[in-house]
């Protein structure tokens, strides 16, 4: 199966990536994509949160690429997917920029959806990236969320 993994400092446009991904999978009936965008607040909703002005994404070069490739291989074992694209930023980000993009191509929409969500859930708990947010009260490392662990674990029994 084809796949493309890019860990990059440069900003990207998720729409351009979707256009390219769809074009190179023109025979796949189903294309699913997910984009994680940087929010400009740090809590559950904007009203009860602090404003976030910048984010720094640190990562583990080598292991990040390796771990993402491993997740793609696992997705390929579980579902009939034709292609996967994963793009993940590192370095400095500003609000509304895309942080991560995952796209899957399959003959069937159920498999495209499942593989895309699986990749996002596992990426969140396995890929070595760390977010550091800067707002009015200073700079803090973002804490991991137990809900992300729970969502990843769902796939163990599926």
């Amino acid at each position, binding site marked *: 199966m084809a796949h493309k993994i890019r860990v990059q400092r440069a900003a990207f446009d998720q729409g351009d990536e979707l256009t390219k991904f769809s074009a190179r999978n023109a025979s796949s009936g189903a294309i699913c994509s997910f984009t*994680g965008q940087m929010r400009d607040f740090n809590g559950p909703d904007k009203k009860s949160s602090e404003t976030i002005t910048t984010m720094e*994404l*640190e*990562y*583990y070069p*080598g*292991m990040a690429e*390796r*771990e993402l490739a491993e997740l793609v291989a696992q997705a390929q074992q579980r579902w009939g997917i034709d292609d996967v694209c994963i793009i*993940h930023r590192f370095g400095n980000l500003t609000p509304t920029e895309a*942080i*991560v993009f995952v796209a899957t191509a399959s003959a069937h929409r159920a498999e495209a959806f499942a593989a895309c969500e699986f990749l*996002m859930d596992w*990426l*969140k*708990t*396995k*890929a*070595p*990236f*760390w*977010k*550091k947010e800067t707002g009015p009260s200073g700079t803090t*490392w*973002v*804490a*991991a969320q137990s809900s992300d662990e729970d969502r990843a674990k769902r796939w163990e029994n599926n």
Partner: protein
Amino acid sequence: MNILYFAWLRERIGVGAETLSPPAAVETVTQLMDWLSQRSAGHAAAFADRKLIRIAVDQVHSNPATRIIGAKEIAFFPPVTGG
């Protein structure tokens, strides 16, 4: 052996990487953390609460009991928060 630190572990220790040769008695990740904790106050602070620390041995997710004999690269970091 290359030892890597990320995020707040890197900040507390003051460097992102060290090349070290632990004594032969250091056979597991736990023993390595014990040994590293003695290097400086920053190391001690970084390794104070081990529940907060995740480990990769040669770029593979591992745990405190993982044996490190022959390993080339050992990384310590907080739970990941990408995506």
